[in-house]
């Protein structure tokens, strides 16, 4: 089975100070000085890919894992990290011109699906529900649409069905947790995953071994994807504002813990719990 896990690296948005959130000359917010990290939902996707690969070694042919991203050379460090974690292929697709891709899921999905269908010839695609910077939440659905494959959203966990070419997928729905058995191909869009919230850590030996492996770097032209109609260069941020958010502290008085708990319930919880 060939599995592609799509990921993006983003600025760690916990790091910038309040004064860093500025729009200068209607350009994107400059976060070039901030440490880059795996987008959190993609991190779960990448870990799910590794778990699936580990399962496959025991029951069937080993899954062939590809890590796929659209970025410039700054992503190579992350792709080598994934090599160290036993990804079989590390592929970076570089746009023809440097561009801010945060709000262009249409274009991103065209590039990803072109690679998946035409070059990688994958059977399963796993990717995060949204990126921390743009929060569009569209790329996964658009990739599925372009490929013509079924997709499942809010995926929490994936397991091999058995030696056959299928999967058991656990996802979160509005009514609770759902477990589905599916055939491939498919697109799985991961959400919050309590089972795989973090990507595992490679050992120093694994990192050294991976350091000499080559990243597959492809240009946009090699995929035959054009920008026409998908990149709106006439739209730019004009300014930023921070929504007001404040909390109030109330000290609950009472002689005993029981008194305080009763007051807390009466004053603050009762109405909410009855809603």
């Amino acid at each position, binding site marked *: 089975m060939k599995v592609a896990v799509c990921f993006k690296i983003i600025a760690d948005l*916990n790091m910038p100070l309040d004064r860093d959130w500025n729009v200068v000359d209607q350009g994107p917010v400059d976060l070039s*000085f901030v*440490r880059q990290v795996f987008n959190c939902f993609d991190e779960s996707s990448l870990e799910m890919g590794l778990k699936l690969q580990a399962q496959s070694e025991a029951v069937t042919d080993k899954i062939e894992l590809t890590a796929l991203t659209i970025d410039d050379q700054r992503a190579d460090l992350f792709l080598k990290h994934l090599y160290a974690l036993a990804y079989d292929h590390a592929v970076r697709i570089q746009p023809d011109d440097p561009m801010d891709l945060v709000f262009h899921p249409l274009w991103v999905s065209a590039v990803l699906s072109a690679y998946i269908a035409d070059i990688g010839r994958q059977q399963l695609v796993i990717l995060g529900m949204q990126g921390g910077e743009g929060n569009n939440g569209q790329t996964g659905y658009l990739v599925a649409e372009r490929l013509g494959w079924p997709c499942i959203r809010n995926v929490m966990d994936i397991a091999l069905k058995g030696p056959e070419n299928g999967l058991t997928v656990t996802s979160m729905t509005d009514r609770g947790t759902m477990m589905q058995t599916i055939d491939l191909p498919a697109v799985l869009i991961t959400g919050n995953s309590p089972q795989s*919230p973090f990507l*595992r850590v490679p050992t*120093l030996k694994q990192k050294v071994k991976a350091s000499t492996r080559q990243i597959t770097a492809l240009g946009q032209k090699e995929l035959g994807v054009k920008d026409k109609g998908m990149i709106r260069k006439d739209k730019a941020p004009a300014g930023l504002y921070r929504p007001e958010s404040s909390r109030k502290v109330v000290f609950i008085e009472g002689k005993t813990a029981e008194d305080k708990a009763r007051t807390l319930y009466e004053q603050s919880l009762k109405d909410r719990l009855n809603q």
Partner: protein
Amino acid sequence: MTIERDTIVRDLINIVGSQRVIIDGQVLKERSHDRFRKFESICGVYTRPIPAAVVMLETVQQVSDVLKYLNQHGITCIPRTGGSATEGGLETIVENTVVLDGSRMDKIIRIDPYNMLATAQCGVNLEVLENKLRSQGYTTGHSPQSKPLACMGGLVATRSIGQFSTLYGGIEDLVVGLEAVFPNGEITRIKNVPRRACGPDIRHVIIGNEGALCYITEVTVKMFKYEPENNGFNAFTLDHMKTGFEILREVMTSGYRPSIARLYDAGDGAQHGFNQFAEGKCVLIFMSEGPVHIARATRTGIAEIVARYQECMPIDNKIIETWFANLNWGPEKIALEREFIRKNLNMGFTTEVSGNWSCIHTIYENVMKQIPEKFPHAGDLTLFGGHSSHSYQTGTNMYFVYDYNIVNCRPEEEINKYHIPINALIVEETLKAGGSMVHHHGIGKYRTPWTREEHGSAYYILESLKKVFDPNGIMNTGTIFPFEK
């Protein structure tokens, strides 16, 4: 005669009242350790003797009364405030230990801007004090990564150091006066004066005692003007740690006092994301602060020194400023770390040592060579490196960091399989080269096998302090001094 657990609890209730004596099982378990055994606690495994009670002390008199009682009956106690210790100093190793929690003694007693003195009870959280001072245009100058968690009593007890120590000094340079209670119940106050020559400096009997001699109840520290608008960074990449140590030495011996002087090797730098702009390189960081003219002169002087070393290339200061603003460890980072460890079975520790300029590079090189060769589970290491972060006229420290995947071992085996042997190798290499085995975390309970070697013939002085001030050995048994049954 051994006193029964129930009797201890009953007597403590009689002394301080039932509302101040905690015997809840989960609280007792959690108070049986500190961050040294974090993996065990994450897994809900508690291997240390469960304390008889936690006493929430609120007044100096209560501290005195309780200590007098415990001393009379030979009951071991562990002083505790913020609980951010990392070296096992807060671990219980004796049955029916009583944990003396001073976190409710949390009043800022006085801020005296004229004499530049701030007085706080032992349970005052450093960040609370620092924020209050900053709101008035002052600072303590003390900023350890544990600032959001640590309290004044614990900071002084462990000879803590902050990130701006190269300018302000360690806590021992900041403490002016103290109040402490000894096991016989004696309440002692050391007055706040700028300097005196009235016999040995007795503050140092208390500072760094790790709860093994007395209970610190109140601390007076120096205040400084807070002028962050004058802060500025000089940051560089470089190829070799040896060059970095040379530059640190030249900066310090030339008389410059940046508040931050840090040198990272490539391994440690990678965990901070330095490999994203300087893969495989070392990173050297200075921050200058204080009055505008001094800050500017310090920056200029450092830039002149570094310019003589061709391998040094400047880094965008904005990268370093942003990184530094996110360095501290608060409750939310600890909670995330615990979740990460639980899910990924990957965790890390540090061992911090120091040495004179003539031996610090030898210590660094030997440790970097010995761990991969001698540590039997080196294949499980996921990060190994170090940095220097506190420099002096005569030398600097090395802070070794190591992360590992926990492979094929039970929670209670992890500390013996990984942290303790790595820690031992670092301590032994440091002592062999002539350095000190502990720079700023305290000895705790796991570097005690080397306390005697660390102090050499001066151990006589240290040992005598224990004999005089804690003759019954009730104060944090097994900390600083090896536990002998």
